């Protein structure tokens, strides 16, 4: 038994579990894993990559929209709605929750509130991006060492 591989798998499992415990990912992320199989071997990375590029664009749009002399709140809300939707679909719980708060400020047409929220969303996004990129690296290491990626078990809360 390759002790190195076992340790790597252990590290991967611990890292993944921590993401759930910290509320960075929720159970929806497990749905992505369920959809990955031999016919769709890179599904998780593909969907998450789409989420990253899509979100970056939306965050840029939001920055621009909020910097306008007359803020178009319908437009801002539409962008946040998109971001809320995609973060919810991949299980990026904190990003989703930050979007919900944002939408409240948007309804109140509260620009300072929106700007604060945007900062929050950006932070949460960068956090989940960094964590998932690390997770994928750890998975690659396990696979390269000849192991298989254990299905993440969401720790009971």
């Amino acid at each position, binding site marked *: 038994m390759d002790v190195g591989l076992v340790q790597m798998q252990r590290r991967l499992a611990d890292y993944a579990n921590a993401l759930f415990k910290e509320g960075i990912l929720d159970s*929806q992320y497990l*749905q*992505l894993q*369920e*959809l990955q199989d031999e016919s*769709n071997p890179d*599904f998780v990375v*593909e*969907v998450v990559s*789409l*989420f990253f590029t*899509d979100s970056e664009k939306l965050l840029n749009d939001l920055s621009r929209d909020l910097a306008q002399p007359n803020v178009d709140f319908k437009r801002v809300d*539409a962008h946040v*709605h*998109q971001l*809320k*939707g*995609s973060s*919810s*679909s*991949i299980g990026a719980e904190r990003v989703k929750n930050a979007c919900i708060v944002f939408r409240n400020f948007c309804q109140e047409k509260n620009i300072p509130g929106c700007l604060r929220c945007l900062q929050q969303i950006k932070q949460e996004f960068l956090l989940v991006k960094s964590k998932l990129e690390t997770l994928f690296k750890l998975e690659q290491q396990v696979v390269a060492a000849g192991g298989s990626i254990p299905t993440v078990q969401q720790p009971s809360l």
Partner: protein
Amino acid sequence: MADHGDEPHVLAVDDNLVDRKMMEALLKNSSCKVTTAENGMRALEYLGIRDDQPGESSVSATTSKVNLIITDYCMPGMTGFDLLKKVKGSSILKEVPVVIVSSENVPTRINKCLAEGAQMFMLKPLKASDVKKLRCHLMNCKT
């Protein structure tokens, strides 16, 4: 009904790219053939209904290309509800079940869609179990 062997053909409509990819994977995972559309207009084009001719198809099709339409509710331009109305108003497509999905649990919205003929209303994010249930319920699967 269009014959695709054992695999039902589903048209999935959603303006969100991530959600579209998820819906596609969820449906394929439940042994469905999937076509996606990014908005209602594209969906109608695919189905053969022209938007400027309400009701009748401008294509001489006699059967629907698809067995099921799943559409997001909140889409810019044509909403899922608008799309539902167009489908139900078409002589060729009105028998095709339409499922509306939404991230928002709004009872008046749900009732409005069901009253207009939606087969089901489901909450996002969709899970594999939701889609499996949906497929069995709508396609009368044998297992």
